[in-house]
């Protein structure tokens, strides 16, 4: 079973959000999504300085088998992207909640997000 990290919040589109209450929030895709996609070979991220909107597409994640849109789970300005993951997308498969993070946003608003328990229950993940 794919791992779900307790401290994070999750969107229905399988993005995770790390918010500690101060500063930009970190965003990535869940292990559930990474495992379902298969080996990820290409990732297209929003540009630093651009504005993303909760629930809207802001990039894409492509694996050998399929391609899937990346939805922003929050609204706000992109402050940083993970250049390492652009160069080596396999980081998303290997460590989706750590080195495989995707981008950070100075969030002004959150879309509908689930707790780890809710997300795991809805998607068959393992806490």
């Amino acid at each position, binding site marked *: 079973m794919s791992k779900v990290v307790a401290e994070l919040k999750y969107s229905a589109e399988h993005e995770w959000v790390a918010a500690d209450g101060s500063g930009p929030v970190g965003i990535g895709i869940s292990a559930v999504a990474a*495992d379902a996609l*298969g*080996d990820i*070979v*290409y990732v*297209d991220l929003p540009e630093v300085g651009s504005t993303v909107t909760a629930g809207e597409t802001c990039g*894409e994640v*492509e694996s*050998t*088998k*399929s*391609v899937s849109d990346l939805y922003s789970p929050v609204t706000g300005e992109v402050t940083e992207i993970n250049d390492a993951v652009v160069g080596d997308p396999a980081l998303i*498969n290997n460590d989706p909640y750590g080195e495989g993070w995707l981008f950070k946003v100075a969030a002004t608003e959150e879309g509908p997000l689930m707790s780890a328990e809710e997300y795991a229950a809805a998607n068959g993940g393992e806490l």
Partner: protein
Amino acid sequence: MSENYTALYEQHKKAGASFTDFGGWQMPLKYESELAEHHAVRNAAGLFDLSHMGEVWVAGPEAAAFLDYALAGKLSAVAVGKAKYSLICNADGGIIDDLITYRRADDKFLVVPNAGNAKVVAAALKERASGFDVLVEDASAETSLIAVQGPNAEAILLKLVPAEQHALVTELKYYAAVEVTIAGDELLLARTGYTGEDGFEIYIPNVDAAGLWESLLAAGEGHGLIPAGLAARDSLRLEAGMPLYGNELSRHVNAYAAGLGPVVSLAKESDFVGKEALAAIKAAGVGSTIGQKLVGLKGTGRRAARAHYSVLKDGSLIGEVTSGQPSPTLGYPVALAYVDVEHSAVGTVVDVDLRGKAEPFEVVALPFYKRQK
């Protein structure tokens, strides 16, 4: 949900496979990483469960004449011990399936259709057999098929074959088959595959399949052998430019558009199902001067074309992608697509609509990947 499970289902579960429905069967899609499985087959060896494929035996004094009538190729010209890639067509020339036929004796052949078509092919063969002194027997349900593919396949297999039979294996030619003792059982061993690498396919009764699977895995230790799923099988065959029924081939496609003209023997003396239609299609120039043709496309960027994406030239629709993904071996996106013949020449640059954005792709010669011999 699929109703069919192969005799190796427990082995796959134990190995941590994720499953997919394919042709009505629950098949391993991948075990850990489909990329690792792909590279293992190119550089070492991969073990595949292909038990979903069909096995139809055709036997009798008129077996060869019957297959000349039922299939598009000239099977009577195949020597005993050899195999031939062929098509079974409808009267209108549409492709019911692509299949491999092994000649096991003067009067005995093994026809291997695709999983999803096995029942239809067996039924069509039985129907076409009326008037021929021949028996058509569908053994698909009792027969498993295990493939070892990759440069180390021969070395792995030899570990399970008695020394006095090694020459049977090492001298076995591509598209040929022989009865060999493997892990104690006398089995049909074919040097065939769907990966673009050297490799073998072993036909075995269901009851013995799990034992052979385990023996092959053990023999493969130290040779880089890992089990490989359908995801790797698909990326391997695509790199090798091989068509997949349901993607490139269907009842709505004819051999000439699919680039399989040489598989059709219009010259054979006997009539065969689809002959008249295919002769007319060829005479009309389908796939060469009119209509569409299957081509290879190479992406110039990193984004891949996928099945059903539109192919454009100067903004106009000229075709459709049938298979596509990033090539793990080559490092760029590859795709197969049907395009209008006037835009099918190697070197032509076309666009593929990648979810709203046109990206340039170049028509290239097939296969994308050819192994060094």
